[in-house]
Structure formats: C-alpha cells, structure tokens
C-alpha cells in the first residue's frame, strides 16, 4: 500500500509548452527557464538558493495538492495519441497561403526544399522521443514502486536509470543530427548530380547544334552550287525583245490608243444619245466656240466631258483593240521564234508554250474582228441616226414657223416663236453638220475599216517587237536540289529541337544551382536547441513522475538534487553544410556551356 497520493500522470501536451520541434522560429521564451532547469535538472533552484523561495514553492505545491485532493479541478480532456499525432504532423498549407494567412513568410524557400527533407526526420524524432518519455515514465513508476531512490540519501554518482536515459537521449540526438546531415548531403549531392546531367545535356545540345549548323551551311552551299551549275549548263530557252528600248512599247501604245480614240469618239458621240439636260449645253458649247487657238481642244474636252458614255465606250474599245493587237504580236513572236525540234530536250515545255500562244492568237483575232466589225456596222448606222435627227429638227422648225404665222397680232407669242425658230435653226445647223460628218464617215467606211485593221496590226507589230520570253525549268529541276531542300528543312527542325532542349537544360541547371545554394545556406539544424530541450526534459520528467507517484516533492529527494547527467553533443549541431567538392567547377562548367549555347543560339537568329 503506497503512502504516496494518486496524482494524475504527466500528459504530453500538444503543442508542447516549450521547445516544439516544428516551431518555425526558435522559441526564446524557453531560454531562461531552460537555463534555470539545467541548474539542477528537476526545476528547483540550486541548493544555494534562498530559503524564502524554497519555502514559497513548498507552500505552493502543498496548496496545489490539497486543492486537488479536496476539489476535482477541471482539467483539459486528454487528447489521444492520434490527436497528438495529427496536431503535429497535419499537412501544412502552401507557403504562399501560410504567408498570406499568418502574415509571416515561411523560413524555407518557396519550393519547400528543406522542409521536404527534414519532415520525415522530425517525425521520426518525435516518435523516438515519445518512446523515450514513455520508458522514462515507466521507469519512474517502477522506481517509485520500490521507493527508490531514497529521498534521504545523498548520492554522489548519478542514478543508473538517469544514466541510461541520458545515454539514450544522447544517442537519439546524435541520430537526429546524423539523419538530417545525411539527408541534406544526399539532397545537395542529388541536385549537384542533376546539374551535372543538365550541363552534360547542354554540352550535348551545343555539340549537336554546332553539327547541325555546319550541316545546314554545307547544304545551302550545295544547293547554291547545284542551282548555279544547272543554270550554267542548261540556260533558259527564250528570246529577248527585238527593240530593247523600254520606252518603245509604252510610247507607241499611247500613240495608237490616242489615234484610235480620236478616230472613234465622234462616232460614238453621234451614236449614243446625250442626256436632254446636257443637250442644250452641248449645243451652246458648239455655238459659243470662239476663235482662239485652243478653241478646238476646249470644245473637244467639253464634248468628252458631256458625252461620258461615248467617252468610256470608245476608250474601252480602243484599249481592247490595242491589247488584242499586242497580245497577238507577242504570241506570234513566240510561235515564230520557238520550235520544238530546235530544242528536243525542252520539246514538252515549248509545245506547251506554243499551244498557249495559239490560244491567245485565236482569241484575240476573233475578239478584234468582232470589235472592228461592230465599229464598221456602227459607222454604217450613224448616217441614218444623223439623218433622223436632222429630219426631226426640221419638222419641229416647220411646226414653229406655222405657229408663228398663226400667231396673228399676238406680239408676245410672235416674239417667243421667233426666238424658238432661231433656236431651232441653230439646232438644225448643228445636226446638219453632224449629218455631214456622218455622211463623210459612211462614205469612208471602208477606208476607216482598213485604218482600224492597220492600227490593230500596228499594235501587233509593237507587241511583236517588244516581246521577250524565257522558258525556265524546261528540263525540270535537279532532283538532288529537292532532296537537299528537304534535308535542309529537316536540319532546321532538328536545330529548333536542340535549341528547345538546350534552353530546357539551362533552365533546369539554373534552378538546380539555386536549390543547392539554398540548401547550403539554409540551416535545418538550427532547430537543435529545441530538440535538445525536448531531450533535456526526459530526466526531469522521470524525477517529477517518481516523486509524484511517491507523494513527494522532487525537491525533497536528495538524489534528485544533482544535475541530470545529460551532455548532448551540441557542437556537432552547430556545424553548417559545405559545398560539394566539385560544385564550383560544376558551376563554372555550366556557365561556360551556357555562354557557348547562347552564342550558338544567337548566331542562328
């Protein structure tokens, strides 16, 4: 039967009050308390402390015990193991979300490199610490059941169980350090290897790119050589213009168009009726023509402007005739200059060109014949049209004169009719002039027909003399050129692929270097004080549980007045991580390759 009171067992708090392993920042609140605990290992001040303080603490602890015995104090429900585990190792939010939610930046890099490395190690450490604490409580209970250690016996040497616990703590601390260091070194080495692979890939891309560029240059030279050789060996078949002057055709074409136009415009002016609103103006223009030297030009210009339909039709007819003539001339030149039997190797191409030329000749001859026939018929009709106009005007004039005779003594009507008669006489005069012109045209219709034919022939002659023709690729292109062009296209595709690979390697290597430098600069072992404090609490917990189970104050047990026999190898934790031995050389190699790659990529732009 134990005399010791029934005290609730120590419960691992979540999160722990001090020195949590997953805290993002070192908890400085613990520093003073830790230093004080380290003084004697059980939370009591050193033996040299003031008696007032001890008395006060004794009184306080007895008060607490009394109150716990008399009144069941409300206590926080004890969380289960799963709750403790979840609260510690629940998935963390993303760095950005955490920063946004808490307003603090994560201490790890954006990629969470260090965290991903130390996460499992921390989990393992917590499991081990938990096991150690459980064993410590069990030992405390066993020792308490035996009434050990004796509270009145001052011991010189540490308790054996405390030595065991201290040894396990030291071993656990060493294992944690070793695991973190190993994982960090592994990660750094893995990144370095990745950088090396990227550098090698980049160098491979550089080599391949250089080969591709050389190959493309050689292909281009070969294509140019083959094209030049083909042109030299088999020059294009054709002929040059008989009259090489570049102004020959334009000048004569303009001249022919002008002649035809001036010859045909009056005809269409007589054939196509003028709008009634413009008829009076046209007559006035004819009557008002002065005796200036430019009167003819001015009258012609006015007539052209008023007779828009006649102007457009006659101009189009003339242009069509000249185009027909020129096309016939050019095609005739080709038909007379090229024969298939003169160039047997190019017979196919020449025959094709001759067939097209024949088609042009036939079409243009039919077209020009139709146009010239239409003009001939129009000239035949123009006399009739002009005669009808004269007759109509004469009839109107006779009617006016008859009305004038019937007007009698009506002075106003006589005056008006007199004016109308004079206008009619003038119109009749103009129409008679037109009729005279039409009669002249009709009488000379045959001559004008010959003139039209002559002008078309002249246009044809101009086309014949100015025609030039060049039959290229008459033998078909060299098949090697097509193959080389296909090869060149494939090279271009390969170059683009190598450039993409190279840029991907550069990007990957840059990221790897950044990660390595980040790992080297980062200090996952900075958490060692928290780990150390967690381990340092094992022995005090053993002492406290032992005393509690025995119903004693741990301060009253003389064996517990000695500092815990725990000496953690903290100097090892303070050591940082060195760069891999060949990391600088690797970086230099990569920078060199990158510069070379950039030059090569820029050279192809």
């Amino acid at each position, binding site marked *: 039967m134990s005399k010791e009171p029934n005290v609730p067992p120590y419960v691992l708090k979540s999160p722990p009050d001090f020195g949590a392993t997953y805290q993002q920042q070192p908890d400085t609140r613990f520093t003073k308390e830790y230093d004080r605990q380290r003084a004697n290992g059980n939370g009591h001040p050193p033996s040299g402390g003031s008696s007032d303080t001890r008395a006060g603490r004794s009184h306080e602890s007895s008060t607490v015990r009394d109150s716990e015995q008399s009144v069941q104090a409300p206590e926080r429900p004890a969380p289960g193991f799963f709750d403790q585990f979840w609260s510690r190792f629940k998935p963390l939010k993303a760095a950005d979300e955490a920063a946004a939610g808490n307003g603090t930046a994560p201490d790890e890099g954006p990629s969470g490199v260090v965290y991903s490395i130390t996460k499992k190690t921390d989990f393992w450490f917590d499991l081990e610490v938990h096991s150690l604490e459980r064993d410590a409580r069990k030992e405390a209970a066993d020792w308490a059941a035996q009434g050990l250690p004796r509270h009145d016996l001052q011991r010189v040497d540490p308790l054996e169980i405390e030595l065991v616990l201290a040894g396990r703590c030291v071993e656990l601390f060493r294992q944690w350090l070793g695991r973190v260091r190993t994982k960090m070194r592994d990660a750094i080495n893995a990144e370095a290897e990745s950088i090396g692979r990227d550098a090698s890939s980049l160098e491979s891309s550089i080599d391949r790119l250089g080969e591709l560029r050389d190959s493309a240059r050689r292909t281009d030279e070969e294509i140019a050589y083959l094209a030049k050789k083909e042109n030299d060996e088999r020059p294009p078949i054709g002929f040059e213009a008989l009259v090489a002057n570049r102004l020959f055709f334009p000048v004569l074409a303009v001249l022919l168009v002008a002649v035809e136009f001036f010859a045909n415009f009056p005809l269409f002016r007589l054939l196509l009726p003028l709008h009634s609103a413009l008829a009076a103006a046209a007559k006035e223009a004819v*009557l*008002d023509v*002065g005796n200036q030297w430019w009167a003819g030009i001015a009258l012609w210009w006015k007539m052209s402007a008023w007779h828009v339909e006649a102007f457009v039709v006659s101009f189009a007819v003339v242009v069509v005739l000249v185009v027909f003539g020129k096309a016939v001339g050019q095609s005739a030149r080709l038909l007379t200059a090229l024969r298939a039997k003169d160039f047997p190797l190019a017979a196919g191409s020449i025959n094709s060109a001759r067939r097209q030329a024949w088609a042009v000749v036939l079409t243009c001859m039919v077209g020009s014949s139709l146009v010239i026939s239409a003009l001939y018929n129009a000239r035949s009709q123009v006399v009739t049209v002009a005669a009808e106009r004269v007759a109509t005007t004469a009839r109107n004039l006779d009617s006016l004169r008859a009305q004038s005779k019937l007007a009698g003594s009506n002075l*106003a009507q006589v005056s008006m009719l007199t004016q109308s008669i004079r206008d009619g006489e003038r119109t009749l005069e103009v129409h008679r002039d037109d009729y005279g012109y039409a009669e002249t045209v009709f009488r000379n219709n045959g001559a004008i027909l010959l003139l039209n034919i002559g002008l078309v022939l002249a246009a044809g002659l101009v086309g014949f003399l100015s025609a030039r023709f060049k039959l290229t690729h008459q033998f078909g292109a060299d098949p090697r050129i097509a193959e080389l062009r296909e090869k060149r296209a494939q090279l271009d595709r390969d170059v683009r692929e190598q450039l993409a690979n190279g840029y991907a390697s550069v990007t990957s290597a840059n990221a790897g270097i950044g990660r390595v430098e980040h790992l080297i600069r980062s200090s996952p072992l900075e958490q060692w004080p928290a780990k150390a404090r967690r381990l340092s609490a094992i022995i005090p917990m053993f002492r406290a549980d032992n005393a509690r189970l025995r119903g004693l104050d741990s301060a009253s047990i003389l064996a517990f007045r000695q500092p815990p026999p725990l000496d953690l190898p903290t100097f090892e934790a303070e050591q940082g991580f060195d760069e891999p031995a060949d990391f600088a050389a690797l970086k230099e190699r990569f920078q060199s390759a990158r510069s070379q790659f950039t030059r090569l990529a820029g050279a192809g732009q």
Partner: protein
Amino acid sequence: MKFHNVALTLALTLPLGCGGDAVATTTSARGTQYIVGVDISSSRTSMDLRESQALLSGLVDRMTYGDKLVVVEMYGAAEPQQVADSIRPMKEATPSPRERRELEDFRARARAIVPMFFDSTRQKEVLVTDVFGTLFRAADYAKAPNHDKTVLVLLSDMIQATGEANMEKDGGIPGADWIESRASEQRLPDMKGICVVVSGAETKSARGAQVKRFWQDYFAKVGARMPPDRYRGLIADPNQLGCA
C-alpha cells in the same frame, strides 16, 4: 540676284504690255431705253408709215448690249398694243459668241414685231390720236430701272385728237395757259431727263408751227429735253435718235 530682278520685272510688265487691247470700257454699260410711240392714225399717209417703220427698223439694227426697246401704239384705245424687249449688257469688253447670238436674237424678235405696229389694215380703225396718254405711259416706262438714259421716239404727226384737246380743229391747239393750268392741277407727266425725238411731225404749215411751239413748251414744262432739230417731219438716220 540680277537675273531674279530682271525676271520679276518682266513678269510684272509683260501682262500689262500684252493686255492693252483687253482693257474694258464700261461707260454706259447699262445701255439706253428707247420708248417708241407709233402713230398709225388715219391722218398719217402710208408713206409716213413706211418711213416710220424704216426708222424703227434702223433703230433696232442700231441697238446694242444693255438697250431696251418699248414700242407703244399711240391711239385712244383702252388697250393699245405695246411690247417690251431688251438685250443684256456685255460682261466683258468684247462680246462673247453667246452675247452676239443673243443680240442677233433680240434684233430678230424686234424685226418680227415692228411690222405688226405698222399694219395698214388697222389704220382705218384708229380714229383718234392720244399723244398725251402716250406721254404718260412713256413717263411710266422711263421710271423702270437698269438703264442710263431714256430716249422717247415719237413716230407721229403730234396732233392730239381727243376730247381733252383736239388740234385738228381750228383753235384747238392749247396755249401756254393750258399747260400751266394742267401743271397746277398736277396733270402733266414727269418726264425729267427724257430725250424726246419726233419724226413725222407736220412742220411746213402754220398749224404745224403752232403745234411744234406747243410741244416745245409742253416738254419744257415736264422736264424733258427736245432739241429743236429733233422735232422733224422725217428723221432718216437712226443715229440721230438721241439728244447728243
């Protein structure tokens, strides 16, 4: 620098030197209004009528740009025949073809109308000659705008033969007091500035002399100008149809 000065001088002087013939003369650009009173009463012989028609035709041929022609019958009918026509003034110093054509048209219209005023078949129908009424109408026509001067050509014997004054009767020619009384009654036409020319008047008889004197006093009273040599039995030259 000198070349530029010479070029500038030539550019400024050449148009002046070459354009001498083209300077427009715009004096009396609005022309003259001729008001012609035609008397075909029975007191006039057919020879008088032919002479008057020839003079009027000569006047028509003499008319030019800007002139106006008003022909009025001088008899006492309620609606005597009258016609007005005109030709537009020239826009430039020399007439354009259109303006020349318009002038010819005007003359042709006038020539077509003039014979209708001398229709001998109508002579018997006209029994009275109302010179005063014609003068009032002429004074009204003279008030029309857009002309510089007005010439009243009276192709008449100037013998008023109406109830108000019948000069065909003995003692029927009014005296100066008649003119004064009419003036006091404001029954005279306003003919200030009008040049009056009379062709066909009777001048060789005593009555003719009295009639001439009356009309001289009358025209002087109404403000019209009538030089003594423009009151004649015959004016053969149309160029004399004016007061200059």
